[in-house]
């Protein structure tokens, strides 16, 4: 049996864990660059703040005057996610961190509703995160149960759809949009056939579902009918690419700023590749202007193979050359990205006769760089040409302290 434990308005909960002034207030968390609402407290939802609401356009609405908008603080959310995961490992034999705020767990025959309520209370008290739990014989059903637990407060935060009769009762009232993996296009097709509820969808013949929604839809359909098609995954899948792309805090107009942004993105991407013990064999670079601002639209892009490496300097050099080639002056750029492609394990590579990068020296230097950045905070040691504070860096005007990861940012406790 699967359980899905999901943090309620997870980012908001992380902010509230250290700031009691946010409790009971309408709070939202904004995406990178303070763009749009990506997490909303119940109070903010009640005021009508929508998911993805573009905040600089909406914040002046009279209804939204009381909303507290926080910039995203991923260092904090990541650490709180780790804490949630670790507490769950004390309760369940297997825990799969599916996303930053959703964890699948293996439930035994004894660990059902009451047990999950206790775990929920524990996560709330020890990690300060309110959660809901969905229980089902498949991941899709656990996910569906979780949605129901979130919506129907009377369930006390836990919804169990392991019983087939209970399941069919619940299916009747659920629109197909509630089902994990059924997107807008599939919904349109299903609605055209007169299929609107989960009950109607589950009752379709499997072959018809396959014809309409391919094998992926067929899998979802089988899972809804209690037939597991997805197992617990305990290690993330092998990475094929690593991408670092950012909207700029304000438009970038000079090559110097763009150069710095691309160098920083390259360094960060290379660091990620090294963390997985891989090397990149290709690079893609892109820069573009704002698509909806009415200004001239330009999108420049290059993708090419490189000598296999994870060395920041080697990658920066390649990215710079490509960036220079796609750079057009006189434009206001809104976004740039660096994507490292075709990642490989070092031992899988054919031996190069004349490598231009000394692998031993490169490895030593890069591990020194990563070690210092891990010990003293990201950006402590940077390849030349990347300044700490830059004009291009992401906007974050109301970011909370990194309460759990920086000594300088600890929560203050008053004793006066």
């Amino acid at each position: 049996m699967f359980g899905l434990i999901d943090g309620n308005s997870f980012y908001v909960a992380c902010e509230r864990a250290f700031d009691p002034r946010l409790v009971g207030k309408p709070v939202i968390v904004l995406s990178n660059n303070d763009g749009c609402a990506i997490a909303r407290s119940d109070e903010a939802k009640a005021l009508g703040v929508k998911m993805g609401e573009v905040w600089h356009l909406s914040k002046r609405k009279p209804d939204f005057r009381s909303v507290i908008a926080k910039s995203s603080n991923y260092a904090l959310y990541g650490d709180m996610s780790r804490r949630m995961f670790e507490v769950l490992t004390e309760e369940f034999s297997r825990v799969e961190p599916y996303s930053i705020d959703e964890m699948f767990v293996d439930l035994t025959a004894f660990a059902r509703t009451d047990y999950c309520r206790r775990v929920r209370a524990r996560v709330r008290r020890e990690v300060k995160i309110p959660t809901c739990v969905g229980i089902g014989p498949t991941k899709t059903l656990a996910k569906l149960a979780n949605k129901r637990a979130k919506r129907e407060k009377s369930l006390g935060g836990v919804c169990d759809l392991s019983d087939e009769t209970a399941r069919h009762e619940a299916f009747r009232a659920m629109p197909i949009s509630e089902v994990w993996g059924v997107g807008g296009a599939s919904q349109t097709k299903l609605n055209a056939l007169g299929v609107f509820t989960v009950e109607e969808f589950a009752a379709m013949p499997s072959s018809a579902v396959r014809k309409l929604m391919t094998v992926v839809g067929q899998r979802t359909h089988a899972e809804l009918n209690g037939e597991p098609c997805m197992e617990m995954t305990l290690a993330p899948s092998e990475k094929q690419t690593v991408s670092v792309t950012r909207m700029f805090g304000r438009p970038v107009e000079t090559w110097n700023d763009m150069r710095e942004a691309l160098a920083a993105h390259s360094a960060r991407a290379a660091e990620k590749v090294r963390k997985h013990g891989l090397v990149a064999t290709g690079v893609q670079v892109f820069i573009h202007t704002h698509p909806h601002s009415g200004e001239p639209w330009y999108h420049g892009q290059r993708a090419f193979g490189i000598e296999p490496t994870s060395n920041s300097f080697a990658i920066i050099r390649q990215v710079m050359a490509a960036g220079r080639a796609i750079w057009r002056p006189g434009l206001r750029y809104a976004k740039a990205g660096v994507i490292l492609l075709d990642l490989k394990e070092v031992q899988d590579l054919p031996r190069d006769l004349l490598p231009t990068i000394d692998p031993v020296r490169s490895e030593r230097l890069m591990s020194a760089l990563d070690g210092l950045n891990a010990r003293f905070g990201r950006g402590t040691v940077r390849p030349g040409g990347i300044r700490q504070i830059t004009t291009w860096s992401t906007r974050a005007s109301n970011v909370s302290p990194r309460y759990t990861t920086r000594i300088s940012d600890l929560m203050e406790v008053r004793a006066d």
Partner: protein
Amino acid sequence: MFFFRSHGRMKAAYRGDETTGFQSPAQDHIEGVPDLAAFLDLRRPQRFAVRVKGDGLRQRGIHSGDILVVNTDGEPASGKVCVAFLHGDVVLAVLTEKDGVWWLEPSSQMPQPVSDDVEVWAMIAALVRTEV
């Protein structure tokens, strides 16, 4: 491996092991400095570090500027110091039990019974002071 900055260049630090002339008899016994994060068990998911502001609990040996290591799963007990959310403030308070009712005694405010709008956030476990 540790590195430090010297004359603008990165260098590997000498750890007591690799010598240039006589071989160091310590080379198989290098241990490094004690790891305070491990000693204080800071990686435990229920452990948080917080910073004290104010000298109201000096009589309990807690000074302004101290770092307290707290447990969110710590067992509450009468007379213990805790971190509490009190009417929108994060405060340090002494927990006491009188006739089956739990009270919070912050240094500067009246004692308050523990209720729904008063949250005991964590119990104090350890203290770190860098200036003595």
